[in-house]
């Protein structure tokens, strides 16, 4: 176990020495996941909002569908998209498999149900009275929507963080759809999996440090914001 310490030190020096390969992997990871969240965010929040306040037939069924989609394993999402994008698949002509675009698509599919389910919960935490009041005060439905977004902002931040946390650390779908190609589709989780299987722990640990510190940072900033919200309520 003595080697664990040396490997960790090696990992830290790798991070601080600005190892080009390592930082390219980190950059790819954040770029892909941020793109996916930014694309999924707007339709998912609108859908969560609609499911919370609109009254249409089949609303409850929709809510259960999105809640059950949360439980679908990432590999299954990866497999489904793989079949769709593979050469014989319906979208095979687009030649997207093993590209960053395919990974973005996979991460959108993974984050969408979380974003919908959690933003639905967030909107529901403000009662229907809040929406009706916003509607009577604001000049049009869009500005009423922004008033409600502000009202439930902590719930929405929580949804974004949970979704980001899931997709940036996920191996299965990234591996299947991206193919772990260096400088193109190799991201943090696929790199960790590969380096570990080769027995090279230093890079894996360095990347792990990045993921864990990011998770800490995001959670802490959310809690900080929520804390400030509480204080202003006193």
């Amino acid at each position: 176990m003595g080697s664990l310490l040396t490997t960790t030190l090696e990992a830290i020096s790798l991070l601080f020495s600005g190892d080009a390969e390592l930082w390219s992997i980190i950059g790819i990871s954040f770029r892909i996941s941020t793109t996916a969240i930014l694309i999924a965010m707007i339709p998912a929040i609108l859908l969560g909002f609609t499911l919370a306040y609109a009254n249409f037939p089949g609303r409850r069924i929709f809510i259960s569908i999105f809640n059950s989609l949360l439980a679908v394993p990432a590999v299954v999402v990866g497999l489904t998209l793989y079949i769709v994008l593979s050469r014989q698949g319906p979208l095979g002509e687009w030649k997207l498999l093993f590209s960053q675009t395919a990974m973005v698509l996979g991460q959108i599919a993974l984050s969408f149900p979380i974003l919908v389910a959690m933003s639905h919960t967030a909107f529901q935490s403000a009662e229907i009275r809040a929406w009706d009041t916003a509607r009577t005060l604001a000049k049009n439905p869009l500005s009423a929507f922004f008033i409600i977004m502000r009202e439930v902002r902590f719930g929405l931040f929580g949804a974004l963080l949970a979704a980001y946390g899931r997709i940036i650390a996920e191996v299965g779908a990234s591996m299947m759809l991206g193919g772990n190609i260096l400088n193109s589709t190799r991201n943090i989780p696929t790199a960790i999996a590969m380096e570990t299987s080769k027995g090279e722990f230093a890079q894996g640990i360095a990347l792990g440090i990045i993921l864990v510190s990011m998770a800490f940072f995001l959670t802490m900033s959310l809690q900080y914001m929520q804390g400030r919200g509480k204080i202003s309520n006193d």
Partner: protein
Amino acid sequence: MTKMLTNKPFMHIQFSHINKSYCKKRCGFFIKKSQAKVIFNDANIVLKGGQCVLLTGSNGSGKSTLLRIIAGILKPDCATITTGSKSLSWKKANKLIRQQVMYLYQEPYMFDGSVTRNLEYALNGKKFSSHSVNQITRALKWANLEHRADTSAKCLSGGERQRVALAQAWLKQPSVLLLDEPTANMDKASRQATEALLLKFKERGTALLIASHDVKHFHQTMDKQLLLENGHIFEIGDKTNNISLFPHSSKRQA
């Protein structure tokens, strides 16, 4: 503010043939006729600018339901809205009534943030001009909430919340203001403060419709008293003869 309003013609709006029933089972695909509970059966109501109408009726008679239909929040089975020379269905008139009619809940909802921020929401996002800052200051003063300007609105008492909601309405300047049990659970001082503010709306030319079972609390404000019973609206008194009708209405409430 009052000067601005004199340009606006006083509203005269009629809601006729209001029909509404609630379905007992909300999500059932096959709702039997017998399961639907009829709340309104061809009811009519007229609202005029500067006039205060008091809507009475026992609990569960449909007062809140009527107010929500008039405010455009709740869809009736059918209703015709006549204003000026135009006659429209509820759905067609929805945009118009959403602009002209404002509905205040019994317990007004306060958004997260200061009282000032809650008032800003009533100004349609024009909050950054110095004119709106002025308007908000005046509205705070008008509702006697100056000392509460920076307090979190969620921490206010019931009476103060009511006054914030009334100040929002004052800024928003609707033609019709609907109030659902505005003085329920209030002490005498808060009730009097609310009534004083309601009188100012009347002076401004707003049409007021108040749902309440405390007839005696709106003695000074009210011009006309309506009774809601079995899905119909009856006119049971006006300012001149309402006293003789008190026993009548209290009997029905019992």
